[in-house]
């Protein structure tokens, strides 16, 4: 049981969810959008956060779809990680989300939850960064598409009241040769020491990494040379220098695999 009371709403459309959020915010009811809810429930239970209203967005059609338009792959924000992996519409993203948390929780964590949550690793972001995904956001009765690269360094990623509707990626790019590896300290189910994703396009490899800094990022040869060790995560999982060592090793592996 969560140690505080709140109201629970189940809107059926984006406009219902949006106007409800505005109304509740005006009334100082502290609303939150609720998708998988794993982070809200676990943090709420230990008193890290409170909210007055949970707006469950899982009944909104746009947020629940996985679509292949022929040109683009579209994945709704409230699609859970298991559904993404099973759909196989975006194999690199599928491989990444299959290693986030565990198999059972993957039935609950949503795409938006992984991208917007408080856990810094946000591994689902890596394929999206590599493929220049667009993020469709709903706010105040309208939707807009924003490039993921314009967004990923913002904290929080979205402003209050904004709702992540879907991500869109160029379908052709999802067929590029790819590499993914998550290196963990000891247990298979853990936060990453380093998660590396790479895609090869026109004999050129692009890399994105999680576990290096306190946010996922794109990395190239230049930035690899200029890593500021003081910015690298240094914690109970690993020292900063070991993370850099693992990253370099993984880049070599990716290079070998993608050019073999």
């Amino acid at each position, binding site marked *: 049981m969560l*140690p505080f009371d*709140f109201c629970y709403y189940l809107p059926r459309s984006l406009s*219902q969810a949006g106007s*409800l959020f505005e109304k509740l915010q005006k009334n100082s009811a502290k609303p939150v959008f609720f998708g998988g809810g794993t982070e809200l429930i676990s943090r709420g239970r230990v008193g890290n956060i409170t909210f007055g209203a949970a707006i469950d967005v*899982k009944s909104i059609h746009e947020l629940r779809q996985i679509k292949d338009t022929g040109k683009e792959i579209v994945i709704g924000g409230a699609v859970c990680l298991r559904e993404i992996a099973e759909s196989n519409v975006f194999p690199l993203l599928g491989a990444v989300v299959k290693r986030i948390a565990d198999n*059972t929780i993957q039935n609950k964590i949503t795409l938006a939850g992984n991208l917007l949550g408080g856990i810094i690793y946000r591994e689902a972001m890596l394929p999206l960064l590599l493929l220049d995904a667009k993020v469709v956001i709903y706010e105040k009765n309208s939707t807009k598409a924003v490039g993921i690269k314009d967004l990923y360094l913002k904290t929080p990623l979205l402003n209050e009241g904004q709702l992540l509707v879907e991500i869109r990626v160029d379908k052709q790019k999802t067929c590029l040769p790819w590499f993914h590896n998550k290196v963990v300290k000891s247990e298979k189910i853990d936060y990453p020491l380093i998660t590396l994703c790479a895609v090869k396009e026109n004999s050129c490899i692009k890399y994105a990494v999680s576990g290096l800094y306190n946010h996922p990022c794109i990395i190239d040869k230049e930035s690899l040379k200029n890593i500021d060790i003081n910015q690298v995560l240094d914690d109970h999982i690993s020292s900063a220098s070991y993370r850099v060592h693992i990253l370099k090793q993984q880049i070599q592996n990716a290079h070998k695999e993608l050019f073999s």
Partner: protein
Amino acid sequence: MIEYNDYQKVYLNINGENRSVIIKPAQTLLDVLRSLGLTGAKKGCENGDCGSCTVLINSYPIKSCLTLALEAVGKQILTIEGLKNSPFQQAFVSHNAFQCGYCTPGFLLVCHSLSIHYPNADDQTIAHWLQSNICRCTCYQEITNAVKCKLKDILQTKKA
């Protein structure tokens, strides 16, 4: 739009039965199931880490400690109490796949769901599914043996 505040009467479909319950939004599914006497789902970490609270919703495993009871309205909930005569129960006994039994309901439900969705599961898939649950008595090898043996049996029976 549906709205719930404070205590309200709702119906939960648990083990094939529609049960009326009076609940409030802050209650997790785990709390509500246990308050109904369905104590097979156990409180372990209450943080999504151990899997002892696992139940199936629409045939997929979920951690009921990280699920609001209201999220399960309109869905089919299966708890260990409703898993009657699952072949995995006997396999756990014959392979000594438990000691204290605290984790066993969660593991059995995961195995049941695995056999529905991946009856041909390879070793990697089996390992991936079982990694969601922790056994403090460390019966991992016995559990894996039981699952592999039973999946093989189920497949052979189907073929025959």
